[in-house]
């Protein structure tokens, strides 16, 4: 036991001596949490819009002003022809253009009820031309613009057009039917941080742990110090465990930092039991460390270990974990592939525990899968650990 503790202290000293790496290890999660919490959103905002018209009638003017007043659109300029507008969009100086064609066509509404909302712009036709490179955004921009433009001019107030937020478009008022209620559970303000914070936790913990541990053994191999460790009276298994312990402590400290940031800086709720959040995270950290150890045992050089853990691992973790892209929308084959990506289960579990605040019983499946993966990875890592050098 004394030997083991001495070994852990030796490993800890190795890590603590490198002040710059320590700084990065704690600075990185803080900065990334800030970026994710504040900067990465998919909201519609500041869409650069050009108006195509030779002369602005007062009615057009009013409608355009209303558009400009909303935070969603910025009117950048007025041009004379649609061709000019198209050129501006092509060279990325604008995203959308509006061409009014006043009074030419009567409202095409089948029942003519559109006119109930007062004259105003309701019989003003707008031709919207939009940069469709990103289909999702194009769709949202058009919907937003149309719903602003279609509101009555004389209205004292206009509800902000958020087509996908309730109740402005589908709720009572403009609603589809009086007896329809909509409730957005857990995240009524639809903050993207609620969705992203568990994801960033999954990504950071996985990659930091894997990058830290992946070089632990291979470095000793490369430097030639492994031979000394192997001839020492410490058992090989103990060597590995002793190497993992300081990283476990470090990863735990990073986890606490992240959780504090999430709660107090980003305002993300920790609705569930803190004990279980920490417990599941610890399990996940163990899993990530095992993966790092496995990489370290398999790789022959630090170069390979680092490229594997930082570059090759980054892609599946970002793409297949459900962090940015929903797993349910992927083709079946890729859903199977995604099933072996550990962060997927952790992110799912954290979304449930942190945001939804459910009990541990509801995440039993995720915990079981994570446990299984940890056991398997650890077993392979230990098996691959060569006690003899070639």
């Amino acid at each position, binding site marked *: 036991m004394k030997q083991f503790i001495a070994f852990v202290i030796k490993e800890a000293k190795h890590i603590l001596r490198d002040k710059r790496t320590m700084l990065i290890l704690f600075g990185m999660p803080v900065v990334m949490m800030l970026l994710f919490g504040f900067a990465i959103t998919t909201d519609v905002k500041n869409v650069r819009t050009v108006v195509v018209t030779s002369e602005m009638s007062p009615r057009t003017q009013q409608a355009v002003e209303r558009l400009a007043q909303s935070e969603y659109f910025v009117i950048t300029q007025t041009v004379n022809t649609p061709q000019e507008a198209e050129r501006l969009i092509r060279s990325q100086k604008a995203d959308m253009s509006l061409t009014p064609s006043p009074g030419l066509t009567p409202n095409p509404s089948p029942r003519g009820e559109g006119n109930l909302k007062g004259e105003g712009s309701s019989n003003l036709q707008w031709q919207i031309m939009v940069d*469709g490179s990103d289909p999702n955004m194009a769709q949202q921009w058009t919907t937003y613009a149309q719903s602003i*433009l279609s509101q009555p001019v004389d209205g004292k107030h206009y509800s902000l057009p958020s087509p996908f937020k309730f109740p402005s478009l589908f709720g009572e008022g403009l609603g589809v*039917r009086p007896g329809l209620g909509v409730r957005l*559970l857990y995240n009524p303000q639809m903050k993207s941080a609620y969705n992203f914070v568990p994801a960033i936790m999954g990504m950071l913990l996985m990659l930091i742990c894997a*990058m830290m541990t992946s070089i632990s053994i291979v470095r000793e191999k490369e430097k030639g110090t492994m031979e000394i460790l192997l001839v020492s009276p410490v058992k090989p298994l103990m060597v590995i465990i002793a190497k993992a312990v300081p990283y476990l402590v470090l990863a735990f400290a990073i986890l606490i930092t992240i959780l504090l940031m999430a709660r107090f800086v980003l305002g993300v709720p920790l609705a569930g039991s803190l004990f279980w959040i920490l417990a599941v995270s610890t399990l996940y950290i163990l899993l990530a460390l095992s993966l790092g150890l496995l990489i370290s045992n398999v790789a022959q050089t630090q170069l390979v270990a680092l490229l594997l853990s930082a570059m090759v691992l980054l892609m599946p973790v970002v793409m297949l974990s459900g962090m940015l892209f929903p797993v349910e929308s992927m083709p079946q084959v890729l859903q199977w592939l995604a099933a072996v990506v550990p962060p997927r289960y952790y992110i799912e579990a954290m979304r449930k525990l942190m945001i939804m605040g459910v009990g541990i019983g509801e995440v039993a499946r995720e915990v079981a899968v994570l446990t299984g993966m940890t056991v398997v990875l650890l077993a392979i890592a230990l098996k691959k650990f060569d006690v003899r050098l070639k």
Partner: protein
Amino acid sequence: MMIKYLIQKEFLQIRRNVFLPKLIIMFPIVIMCVMPWVMQMEVKNIVVDVVDIDHTVESQRLVQQIAASNYFIFGGQKATYAEAMKDIEKGRADVILEIRGGKYLIAANAVNGTKGSMGSAYLSQIIRPTPQPLPVMEGSGYSQGQQVSAPSLTGRAGGGSLLLYNKGQNYKLYMIPALFAIVMMLMTGFLPTLNIVGEKEAGTIEQINVTPVSKWSFILAKLIPYWLIALFVITVCLLLAWFVYGITPAGPVWLIYVLAMLLALFFSSFGLIVSNYSDTMQQAMFVMWFFVVSIMLLSGLFTPTRSMPQWAYLTTYINPMHYFIDAIRTVFIRGGGLHETAHQVLALAGIGTLMGCWAVQSYKKNS
């Protein structure tokens, strides 16, 4: 002609490595073949649990429509709301539809805001009452037609809208240029990062330092192999986009190569700078990884930059990836030429040159 031998040495080092040649060839291929299928932002397969207290013909119709829709999977009838909530908590359902006394309640799991709100928006279209007339919303498309469909741009009644460039609303077309950027960034960023610091750790840098090789030719010899790798990578990416997805650039191909080379200049120089300032490979990797992920997420690859808060938007002025992705999407999707992308090309060239000079400056021959 010292530099010729130095480049040859770099290539020999890459080739003798058991791992690097495989990585350089396989990585872009695997990424290009798999990732476009992943990068779909569509909201699909939303599981709906129905709590039907009424059991009327109307509610039966709803259940059938939900099951028939592309967007929904019918999760089953539940006796009570609480029972359906259990499903949501377990992650087996996304939306609950409760029908009670002719009234409807949609409760959606909104942890993922987009999915929750889109799901409930689609569902409220199904619930639209057919018999009585309803106030029509101008040009909203939601109130027209009988078929339940996603709010689509084409075929929308009322004031017309015209979708430019990506007419098929193909998400792959939008994401493939982003993938080019990611692959280029990872290949030309991470490999040089480990290069000089690796020599430092191995001790071989000392031998170079005592030779009469100038800083310039030493750094150039380190950079050129990565530019050649970049050239190879972008060619593979373009060919695969063509063969696998049938997607070809709408603008000039040579401009794509120019852009790719400028991006490679930036990332390879940046990698060498990080390498020059680091003491260990691990340190270098952490620093580079941090920058790579930040540059990637703040560039507008996945999320619109204009929705960022002001302080974050300011960083896009120095983010080469932002210029690259703007320019390559203009060329690739919008069919723009040099005239349309001059601004981005200049910015990329400027940042790249600056980084190249810094890479030379930061390399110290004496430790």
